[in-house]
């Protein structure tokens, strides 16, 4: 049977071969894409959507002041009327999420006032006047700050 004259197409063989090559090419592309493009890529933009969850899943070090208040209500009360009330507990006590999760296993330590207070209150020309500053050595006469000031309510 002649290849010509039947229908609108001639040389069907060539066309079939081309179609075959195209089909294989497309298949290879689809397979390669499925293997290489990670899950969720492009869902929200040109990135892996699960990377958002990866970022959100990291562990905490600071528990936040609300956590401390659950067990140390007495300290919260002692600070309530003080100018220190707005300072987060962990600003002075350091990261304590492990202690907040289980206070028997991870003990919190008391900060040393003599070195802690000057971190914020030492005289410095770049400091704004809104923070009260002292020359620690002159002001305290070598004593620890907490022999005169209570750390949680330091006003005298």
């Amino acid at each position: 049977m002649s290849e010509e004259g039947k229908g609108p197409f001639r040389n069907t063989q060539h066309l079939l071969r081309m179609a075959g090559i195209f089909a294989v090419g497309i298949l290879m592309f689809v397979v390669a894409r499925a293997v290489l493009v990670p899950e969720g890529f492009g869902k929200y933009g040109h990135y892996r959507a699960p990377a958002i969850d990866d970022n959100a899943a990291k562990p905490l070090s600071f528990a936040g002041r609300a956590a401390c208040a659950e067990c140390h209500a007495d300290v919260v009360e002692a600070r309530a009327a003080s100018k220190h009330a707005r300072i987060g507990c962990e600003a002075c006590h350091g990261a304590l999420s492990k202690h907040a999760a289980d206070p028997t296993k991870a003990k919190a330590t008391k900060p040393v006032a003599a070195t802690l207070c000057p971190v914020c209150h030492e005289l410095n020309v770049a400091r704004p006047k809104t923070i009260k500053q002292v020359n620690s050595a002159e002001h305290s006469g070598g004593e620890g700050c907490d022999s005169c000031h209570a750390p949680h309510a330091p006003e005298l």
Partner: protein
Amino acid sequence: MSDSPTDKNRREFLSTSVRYLLLTAVAAESWDYLVAGTPEAAPSYHAVKHWWAMAIDIEECIGCGNCVRACKTENNVPLDPWFFRTWVERYHVKNGEHPDVDSPNGGYDGFPEIYPADDGAKSFFVPKLCNHCAHSPCVQVCPVGATFESPDGVVLVDTSYCLGCRYCVQACPYGCRFINPKTMTVDKCSLCYHRITKGLTTACCETCPTGARMLGDLKNPKDPIHAFLRDHKIQVLKPQMATGSKAYYNGLDGSVR
């Protein structure tokens, strides 16, 4: 002529095309739903309901370094004095001169006094961090999509996908990125994404004694950041770069770069 074969074919062709077009559109749309599957397991946090920003009040910053220390602890940043997700700079500006800027260990150990009290200069602290730009240059240059602006406005890094090519380190106009020596991938402020998605504030805001740093959710009408932005004269760093920066500074001096 209505009964010519070409005419009939055209009509048929058009109606078939329209039918197939509609079918393809429907199929594509439903395919998206099929592929998406069930929504992610983040029960109470909906990213699209938030748009995070940071407000910084230079007039309140006392340079205590709490934020720098807290950030390194919270995010396991190497302690070497050249890796910082946030750091504090001290400016000392004498009339008509270039500012003297220093940042000893990024402010990690505080700022030992080095200037005389009465030399007529103005002096202040400037906390710095990733500006979480809405049109980040760093995101635009990433060749693989390993850094991105999340739907809630935080510029995040996909450490499992990052090549460590350093393009973004070069592109950031604010110098907020570095290569973490442990992972050899890029590292930067994530606005404590693991905290803010749990309803906590960032480690730096948690430990800031004066409220000089304020995390804010611009999509929450009750957030105090709106009052702060309204009641102060606000500027962002390098506005000419059109980065859409979301670190809003009050009291930003012209000498600050």
